């Protein structure tokens, strides 16, 4: 560790990291656009300049992202000289940047906006017209580039060079005509394009699927875990006014996904935003009818009570807490347990995506659940006396037609949506993964936390609570089934 002094405070700095990282890690704010802790520093925006005094030499203003820390360095981030230099850099950055924050999608989470506001630059001194460039340049299916807003920090260029190691973008042309461009204007490829919209410090790169959908200050942000593969990337679920999940964004986790996530996970909200959720239904003479939760649970208990050869089938999206409750229920019923395990998909790559669409395979396996393919599960269910299907998307993964074709057995379903199956005696709604608290264990055995980003539909209770209640109803505490 190297000892340096920043703003009169002595701090221990990692000699392998640039000066700006030492400042940020110690809570000293230095503005940055082109610097990103996950990317190689280039020092193109010059906004991170600070005053540095080393030895007897007079103090110099240097870009802190390109300056390695050195023993005995005296840094002042707040000196009038540093502020002056930064303000001039900002003026140049704003020379061609359109000031249409009311329209821009980045407004509210834009570094340029924040720092312009902090520095109070209300007027530019330039008289020349701003650059007129393409406002909606499509870079493939995921990203739209607004060339006018771009400040050429080259974070996106370096992301493809440093992180995915497959360079796709470059700064084309020279001088004031520079623009970000793909090679030969080909569309971007790969499963990690969305990250460049996250790291873009201004509103130049936007996601086609989030563009102009919501103002960022209207989104409530909740920590969550990605459901798309067993990597379990830490994400933030962003919910608009307690309703739809508008986007998932990666959350820094040094052990799992660092700053990144794949596009499959980023846009995986069609299921969590699905409408017409089931709450509680039970079978009557006329078929499945809506009822209250207690009635549906007692109908479920009636189905299971006294049955032998029961099977409990979990969804791979079940949390460890839900799996523990299901295991307790299975123990009371003397039931077999397993979870539906969809086949690995072709999305596997050497970066984040594991190709395994079960986010909690490790957790469920550790709790003693065996992962079976949908066809094998259906085969096992055929001879069962009664079946409990539990967890979000369990019907979808098992195949609705397989559930509908169940004969010779009675079934209880806990899922977000009901299915029209003659074997079904009760269907009870479950929260989707952005509506529940719990943990998934990822492929490396690290727990990923889920928190309640929005409330479940009225009447829907957490699956583990419902399973606990069901086991009490099936065999009251004390009595062994």
């Amino acid at each position, binding site marked *: 560790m190297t000892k340096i002094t920043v703003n009169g405070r002595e701090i221990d700095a990692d000699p392998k990291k640039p000066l700006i990282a030492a400042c940020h890690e110690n809570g000293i704010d230095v503005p940055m656009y082109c610097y990103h802790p996950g990317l190689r520093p280039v020092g193109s925006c010059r906004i991170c300049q600070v005053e540095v005094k080393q030895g007897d030499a007079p103090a110099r203003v240097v870009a802190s992202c390109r300056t390695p820390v050195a023993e005995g360095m005296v840094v002042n981030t707040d000196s009038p000289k540093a502020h002056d230099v930064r303000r001039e850099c900002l003026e140049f950055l704003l020379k061609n940047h359109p000031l249409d*924050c*009311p*329209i821009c999608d980045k*407004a509210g989470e834009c570094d340029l906006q924040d720092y312009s506001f902090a520095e109070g630059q209300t007027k530019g001194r330039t008289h020349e017209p701003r650059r007129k460039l393409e*406002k*909606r340049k499509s870079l493939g299916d995921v990203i739209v580039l607004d060339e006018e807003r771009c400040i050429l920090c080259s974070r996106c260029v370096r992301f493809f060079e440093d992180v995915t190691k497959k360079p796709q973008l470059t700064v084309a042309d020279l001088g004031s005509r520079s623009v970000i461009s793909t090679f030969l204007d080909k569309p971007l490829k790969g499963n990690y394009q969305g990250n460049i919209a996250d790291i873009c410090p201004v509103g130049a790169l936007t996601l086609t699927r989030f*563009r*102009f*959908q*919501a*103002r960022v*200050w*209207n989104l409530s942000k909740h920590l969550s875990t990605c459901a798309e593969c067993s990597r379990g990337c830490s994400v933030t679920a962003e919910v608009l*006014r307690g309703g739809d999940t508008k986007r998932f964004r990666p959350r820094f986790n040094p052990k799992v996904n660092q700053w990144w996530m794949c596009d499959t996970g980023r846009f995986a909200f069609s299921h969590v935003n699905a409408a017409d959720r089931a709450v509680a239904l039970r079978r009557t003479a006329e078929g499945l009818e809506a009822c209250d939760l207690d009635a549906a649970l007692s109908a479920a208990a009636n189905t299971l009570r006294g049955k032998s050869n029961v099977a409990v089938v979990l969804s791979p999206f079940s949390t460890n807490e839900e799996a523990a409750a299901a295991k307790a229920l299975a123990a009371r019923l003397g039931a077999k347990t397993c979870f539906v395990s969809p086949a690995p998909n072709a999305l596997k790559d050497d970066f984040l995506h594991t190709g395994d669409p079960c986010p909690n395979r490790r957790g469920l396996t550790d709790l003693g659940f065996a992962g079976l393919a949908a066809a094998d599960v259906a085969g096992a269910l055929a001879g069962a006396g009664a079946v409990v299907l539990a967890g979000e998307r369990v019907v979808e993964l098992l195949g609705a037609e397989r559930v509908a074709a169940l004969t010779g057995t009675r079934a209880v379903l806990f899922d977000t949506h009901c299915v029209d199956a003659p074997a079904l005696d009760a269907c009870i709604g479950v929260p989707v993964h952005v509506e529940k608290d719990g943990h998934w264990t990822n492929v490396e055995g690290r727990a990923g936390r889920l928190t309640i980003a929005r409330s479940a539909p009225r009447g829907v209770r957490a699956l583990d609570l419902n399973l606990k209640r069901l086991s009490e109803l099936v065999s009251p505490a004390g009595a062994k089934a």
Partner: protein
Amino acid sequence: MVIVRRKELSLRERLYLPEIARGLSITFRKLFEKPITRQYPEEPLPKNEVTRGQPRLVVKDDGNIACVSCGMCEIACPAYAITIDGGETDRPIEREPKKFEIDMLRCILCGFCEEACPKDAIFMSDELELADYSRAALIYDLEKLKRPKSALQKRIDYVYRLNNRWRKSSSTS
């Protein structure tokens, strides 16, 4: 404490009839004067640009709405009356509201939205009457809020005059 002593009546006042005649003379005189009572619903109140009525959205002369759904009024609104959902357009101004709702039952006509708007898209009109048979009908949507710029021009000019101290030119293109 002030002690008010009852006034001693004069002889003329104590005679009663002359005072009755005087009072009635005023009554009859007023009968033939122009009445000052206003027949309100039939005869609307006089309005001017200072009248701060219900907020309305400006439709520019080219037929497009001036609002870019930036959400400033939504945030400024102290009564949480405004809900906006934006969307993309093909016009040079890339953003427009897909849903713009003002709950008129919540709106307190404070004018903060007008003040917050960076695009001169929302102004307090001179429309004041608000009555309907259901609450849902009083949540005004985009179609109910749109007004041509000419209908709001007096208020726009007034706001500009008022703000001229710190705002020099229009930001609406």
